[in-house]
């Protein structure tokens, strides 16, 4: 995955904390002695921020005695997955952070493994996707965008901060498909980072931008862009004016999740311990501080729910990618 140096991701990077590994407060509710976080990318990326932020909250809240963090880049994340599987027996103390791309990359075969080869611990946070236009654009809703597209399909380019076949493109294709258009006919322009895609939107090079909701919300509140559709089930408090896709008659919902995985064959008692620590984390002020600092949305799926969620996402994305011709 190309790390989108997008604003929220980078805020996550901001959470690349120095550990803040304050000694356990030992106030009686410690659930796990220590967790070693394995980060499949380099220091400073989005995964890095998620792992370090979570570790910081867990240790500061006293749920975990100590946390350590190990970056292991290579193969776009595949190297760390392989490492965890090959050394499964000695990695019972390790949690690996990952996100939506593990589903995408397993489908395209970039990774030889998929999420079923790992022990699913929990999905912890996420971000919705959003369709955005510039403030001076005549487009004000998804139906305006569709009308503009029908009038001039080649002149209505939709940009995004991911490769064709990546998240931003898939969301754009989902929206078009749900509106009865041919998703393969959409002119999708890929940019290598969310910030650059946003600049392209403001320059008028593209008509609309498919991007992460959290990345768009600050610019929308500043009046620079208009959010014309969010892929959440219900309106999101951070931008209460922004309509969901569902409200506008589309079936499109999408969550870009982040969560934690453990080595295959992890004993059930250990797994339950990790899941317990993460569940308890949500109620602590320490987590709330980390979450707010990074602008994350709590989307908690533990164990079996996580598996169901991932299987559903894999199926939806897999079907769409087949239709687009990627598989």
């Amino acid at each position, binding site marked *: 995955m190309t790390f989108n140096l997008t604003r*929220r991701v980078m805020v996550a990077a901001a959470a690349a904390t120095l550990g*803040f590994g304050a000694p356990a407060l030992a106030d009686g509710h410690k659930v796990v002695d220590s967790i070693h976080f394995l980060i499949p990318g380099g220091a400073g990326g989005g995964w890095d921020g998620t792992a370090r932020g979570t570790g910081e909250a867990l240790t500061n809240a006293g749920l975990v005695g100590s946390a350590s963090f*190990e970056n292991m880049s290579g193969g*776009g994340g595949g190297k760390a997955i392989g490492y965890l599987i090959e050394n499964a027996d000695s990695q019972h103390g390790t949690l690996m952070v990952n996100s939506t791309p593990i589903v995408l990359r397993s489908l395209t075969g970039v990774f030889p493994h998929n999420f079923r080869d790992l022990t699913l611990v929990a999905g912890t946070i996420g971000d919705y996707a959003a369709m955005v236009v510039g403030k001076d654009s005549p487009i004000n809703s998804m139906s305006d965008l569709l009308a503009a597209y029908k009038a001039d399909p080649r002149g209505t380019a939709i940009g995004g901060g991911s490769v*064709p076949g990546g998240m931003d493109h898939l969301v754009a294709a989902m929206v078009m498909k749900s509106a009865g258009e041919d998703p393969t006919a959409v002119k999708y*322009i890929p940019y290598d980072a969310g910030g650059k895609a946003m600049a392209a939107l403001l320059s008028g090079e593209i008509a609309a931008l498919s991007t992460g909701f959290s990345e768009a919300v600050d610019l929308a509140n500043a009046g620079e862009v208009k959010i014309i559709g969010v892929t959440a089930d219900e309106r999101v408090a951070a931008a209460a004016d922004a309509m969901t896709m569902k409200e506008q008659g589309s079936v499109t919902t999408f969550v870009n999740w982040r969560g934690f995985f453990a080595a295959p064959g992890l004993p059930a008692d250990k797994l339950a311990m990790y899941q317990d620590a993460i569940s308890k984390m949500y109620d602590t002020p320490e987590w709330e501080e980390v979450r707010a*600092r990074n602008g994350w949305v709590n989307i908690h799926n533990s164990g079996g729910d996580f598996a169901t969620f991932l299987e559903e996402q894999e199926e939806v994305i897999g079907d769409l990618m087949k239709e687009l011709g990627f598989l």
Partner: protein
Amino acid sequence: MALDRWIALIIMLICLAYGYAAFFTMDAGLPPFMQRNPIWPSTFPKVLAVMGVLTSLIIVLGIEKGSTGPKAGDIDYRRLGDYKIGQAALLLGLMVAYALLLRPAGFLLSTVGFLVIGAMVLGERKLHILVPVAALAAGGVWYLVQEVLGIFLRPFPIYLGKEAHMLEGNMLGHSTAFSLTNLLMVIGGCLIGTFIGMLPGLGPMSIIAIMIPVAISIGDPSAALILLAGVYYGAIFGGPTSSILITAPGVASTVATSFDGYPLARQGKAGKALTVAAIASFAGGTIGAILLMIFAPVLASVAILFHSAEYFALMVVGLSAIAAFAGSGQVGKALLMTILGLIMATVGEGALFNLPRFTMGVMDLQSGFGFITLAMAMFALPEALYLVLDPNRSNTGNAGSEIKDLRITRDEAKAITPVIGRQSVQGFLIGVLPGAGATIASFLGYAVERNIAKGADQEQFGKGSVKGLAAPESANNAACTGSFVPLLTLGIPGSGTTAILLGALIALNVSPGPRLMEDQPEIFWAVIISMYLGNVILLILNLPLIPYIAKVLAVPRNFLIPFILFFTLMGAYIGQNNATELLLLVGLGIAATVLRFADYPLAPLLIGFILGSMLEDNFARSMQLYDGIGFVLERPMTMGLLVIAVLLVLLPSFNARRAKARAEGVADGD
């Protein structure tokens, strides 16, 4: 057949294999809807393969008259037997062993072993000095990286268990928990930034990412921003040091600095080179800050007029910098190296397609060649190997009397003043563009100054010209300041570093954007003031340090060489923990050394590599948006930039011809 022609033949074979992959293996799997795009993932590679084969043919057939004989002081591969090949091979083997042992044996043990054995291979026998020095260095680096920065580096062998890395680093967190005045913030930030910036592998982006929690814990947005800005400038100020002293550029924006900075250092003028860099940086930063203060709102609206088409044209202008390395008899070689760099840029995942290209099944190539790995392999490693091979090597360092001399002559001052002025403005403007940034600014600055310089002045570029050093340094500093324009006025991060800063701003409850200057003017001014202060403080901090930093080169060779090798390895390893990258580094370094034997210039390869993906992406986007090449004619700004690129390449030869004509005219007149 001479070595350079054999090498061209090998490169031709590589291009043929690459071309085969591009022409016959890539298009079948392309989804039908992408086949409607004018540019396919295979298009650029196909063009490169054809160009590569043709260019290497020119060299293989000896069409271009090569430069005559090896230069004095350079290594002549025909006399390879005289050189210390055994030592070089042993050191390379040691690097491979280090890469393989780094994970299982832990950082401390491997590093001490590497430094001690490396020096012993070179003939050092003073173990009572060597061992403590190596232990101190290994411990120091480990402490800095793991304990201070909190980046995992396994210190002890795996079997010693996990206790070792349960140590948690939060020294900085504690030391800055108490409130400090803003001035102390700047000084602290500058110092931290400078020192970490001197380490390769940690550019401004990672340093800032690491410092952000500290800054946020301060609470006051102005003070936090001032600290971060200080770290940022410090990192930029410290960056060129390794480029100049040992030609190991840690970040892409200091690559151009090494083109003339390193030759100056080799001539024993390290002190002067560092001073010129410091002054150019200072001027670039300060002029940038003034421009930012006055023009920020206006420039922001101009910056977003730039479309992908213009960015493509800008990359073409940037590529014209390679002309500086195409001396007589070198045009074909410089071109071939550029093409090779562009080819390497296509390896791995790009913005155009969701599958990696040309990874040959190697998982570590999936994200492409790492910039630092390539920069170290192309520049620092061959330099270090040259030092090893030198049969006349003595153990004493390069300690001429001039090395610590900071003075710049009046003529030099006169020469660099206009360069700094021009490049500060040009660099700033390029920095304002969200898709360009400091790296592009430094190459453009170098290219423009080299190509408008006249006669002997131009000849000096690449051989130790103070102008060639001042141009990229003032440009990249001004560009860093310029990148604050879209960040503060639009809320758009144009670079990785400003993206992280944006994250920090949001975390501090500051929303950058058009309303920032009205709603929270104190934030805007805090940044501007910290820029002035930061630059002044950096100059004051750095000038007195220069003699000591320059003295690094006076360290005995037996110590210096293993340390340089260690430095290159660390750059590729810190924060990644991927040992395969180190093996790649050694392999590429050997290839680069052979290329240097045959007089191939390596800078064009790195320039091609850095600009390659931006060139391809922006071109592909423009072609897709305009459904063809029409954008060149439809967009006057694109056309204008392309014309400038052509002029920049042609200008030098035109100047030379005119000078020659004039000289002949004078002769006739006599």
